[in-house]
């Protein structure tokens, strides 16, 4: 029986030793080779002092080594923490310090940024840089030439922690979502069921490891012995290359944000490429504009399209299989929940709403996170408990998403109950950006908003009331943001104002600001 993630690899290495597990351009890892390399990495980590439950950072862009890193850490009983290498060093350090990381796994291509991190955190042990340069560093080559005689795989039970995924927090400090082996194995099985996937499938993995869509390629694929094709960063940015590679690799299962599909549709020259192998296209992370979805579905009539929804705290929880292109421009329902999942829709007083009324979606599922790392208060706040008897509660996760049920009992997405937004697939807390800008000494008050431009493009904008208008420099503020925030959270435009439009009670009227900007009145 498979109850931990390391067994996924172990089992497929027995069943399909010579089959390609992961592929990236002209390089590939068979299941047998990946299994051996994961053992070698695990042996090294344990010998270097890793104890069960210790956190290990993976600091890599999209490449084949990510697969070895993930399975090696898990096999050693460690917890993988994928860090986006495009984050500013300050923010990477916040994560490293928050969960007490001692090991960082990387590649030579990231060495400039890693060395910057090491200046502040010199005790980190590094895997992936030249071992001749520093006694705390070891190269991948050295690890793969070590003998394994004394290595004994540790026991890993399903409740053990497997991963911490950091996401924006509204106070300006990222929060770490903890998933156990149990919840991620459960997700892998649900996703395999959804697509009826087999060892003949070829999965297109477009998401970086720090984005939870990648869990499909890294775990659900290997569970059935499929091949996961990792698309390198450059290919994800250039639609013509991306669609060429997807056609060449004969991708059968596609899972990405709508933006990638939209770019492939517009610039991917897909009419001249062969996508006959493709069986499923699943999209999620944000809303797919219906007119573009329809165009794409008409171009690929042999493909089943699935809308897939879920906050990272429960990985995914709904799916909606679209049998034919949508006839109208009405929003696409989020769909129905997995078989192992229950939900309720609650009003502001935590009472269930009447059927069809809007309210906050709360979800009880096997893929629920354990909680936020080292933050009991925030974890408890995110749970909705219904006590069955003293000591036994049904625990639901509060998604913060506003939904209602339609007549077919499908969930429809209406918006957020807080100020979290989705922009180009990224989860962004507007409050967090405001909190960061507020720390700048030249900023008196700040409002961060999303505006919609002609043609439907949405932009992140900040409006600032400076302490002294004469000395403030917008370029300087942008630099300040880029030192403290991930790129996708940096406002695309900053406007200075002498005062804000305000509500009757004197609060900043953000809706009025949005209206004024959209009407070019600011």
């Amino acid at each position, binding site marked *: 029986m498979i109850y931990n993630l390391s067994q996924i690899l172990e089992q497929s290495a027995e069943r399909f030793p010579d089959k390609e597990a992961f592929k990236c351009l002209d390089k590939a890892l068979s299941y047998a080779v990946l299994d051996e390399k994961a053992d070698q990495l695990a042996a090294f980590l344990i010998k270097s002092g890793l104890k069960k439950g210790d956190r290990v950072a993976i600091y890599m862009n999209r490449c084949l080594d990510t697969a070895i890193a993930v399975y090696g850490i898990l096999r050693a009983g460690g917890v993988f923490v994928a860090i986006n290498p495009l984050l500013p060093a300050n923010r990477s350090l916040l994560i490293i310090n928050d969960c007490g990381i001692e090991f960082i796994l990387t590649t030579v291509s990231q060495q400039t940024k890693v060395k910057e991190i090491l200046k502040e955190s010199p005790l980190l042990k590094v895997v992936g840089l030249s071992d001749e340069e520093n006694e705390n560093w070891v190269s991948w080559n050295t690890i793969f030439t070590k003998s394994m005689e004394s290595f004994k795989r540790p026991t890993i039970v399903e409740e053990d922690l497997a991963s911490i995924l950091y996401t924006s927090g509204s106070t300006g400090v990222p929060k770490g979502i903890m998933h156990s082996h149990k919840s991620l194995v459960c997700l892998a099985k649900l996703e395999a069921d959804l697509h009826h996937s087999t060892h003949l499938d070829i999965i297109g993995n477009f998401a970086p490891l720090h984005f939870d869509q990648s869990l499909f390629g890294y775990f659900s694929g290997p569970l059935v012995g499929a091949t996961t094709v990792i698309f390198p960063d450059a290919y994800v940015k*250039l639609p013509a*290359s991306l669609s*060429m590679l997807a056609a060449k690799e004969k991708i059968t299962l596609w899972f990405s944000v709508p933006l990638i599909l939209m770019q492939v549709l517009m*610039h991917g020259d897909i009419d001249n490429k062969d996508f006959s192998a493709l069986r499923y296209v699943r999209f999620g992370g944000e809303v797919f504009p219906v007119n573009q979805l329809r165009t794409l579905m008409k171009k690929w009539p042999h493909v089943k399209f699935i809308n897939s929804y879920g906050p990272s705290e429960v990985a995914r929880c709904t799916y909606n299989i679209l049998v034919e292109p949508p006839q109208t421009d009405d929003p696409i329902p989020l769909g129905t929940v997995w078989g192992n999942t229950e939900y309720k829709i609650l009003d502001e007083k935590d009472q269930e709403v009447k059927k069809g009324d809007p309210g906050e979606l709360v979800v009880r599922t096997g893929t629920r996170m354990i909680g936020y790392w080292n933050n009991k208060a925030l974890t408890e706040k995110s749970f909705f408990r219904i006590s069955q008897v003293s000591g036994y509660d049904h625990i639901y996760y509060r998604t913060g998403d506003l939904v209602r049920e339609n007549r077919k009992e499908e969930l429809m997405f209406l918006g957020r109950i807080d100020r979290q937004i989705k922009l*180009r697939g990224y989860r962004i807390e507007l409050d967090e950006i405001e909190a960061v800008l507020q720390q700048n000494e030249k900023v008196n008050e700040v409002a961060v908003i999303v505006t919609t431009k002609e043609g439907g493009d949405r932009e992140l904008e900040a409006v600032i009331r400076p302490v002294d208008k004469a000395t403030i420099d917008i370029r300087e503020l942008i630099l300040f943001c880029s030192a403290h925030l991930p*790129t996708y959270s940096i406002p695309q435009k900053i406007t200075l104002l002498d005062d804000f439009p305000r509500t009757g009670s004197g609060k900043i009227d953000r809706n009025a600001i949005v209206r004024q900007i959209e009407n070019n009145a600011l």
Partner: protein
Amino acid sequence: MNDKIITYIKEEIAIMPLDSIDVHEDLLGSGIVDSLGMMKLVVFLEKEFQVKIAPEDMTVENFDTINHISEYLSKK
């Protein structure tokens, strides 16, 4: 040509502050430019150099470095 492209990337689309960009530097893999920036760059090149860049030409081989971008444009 290279200078104009470098200036545009540095001032308009680079996602991190940069002093300079080498003409051989990997714009995409290193994360200097994201996918939206890439689309903006194409629009800029079409306007600035009076060329039409076909979707099928927007490939890694043509766009990964500033040198490759200008080589591609000079063949147009």
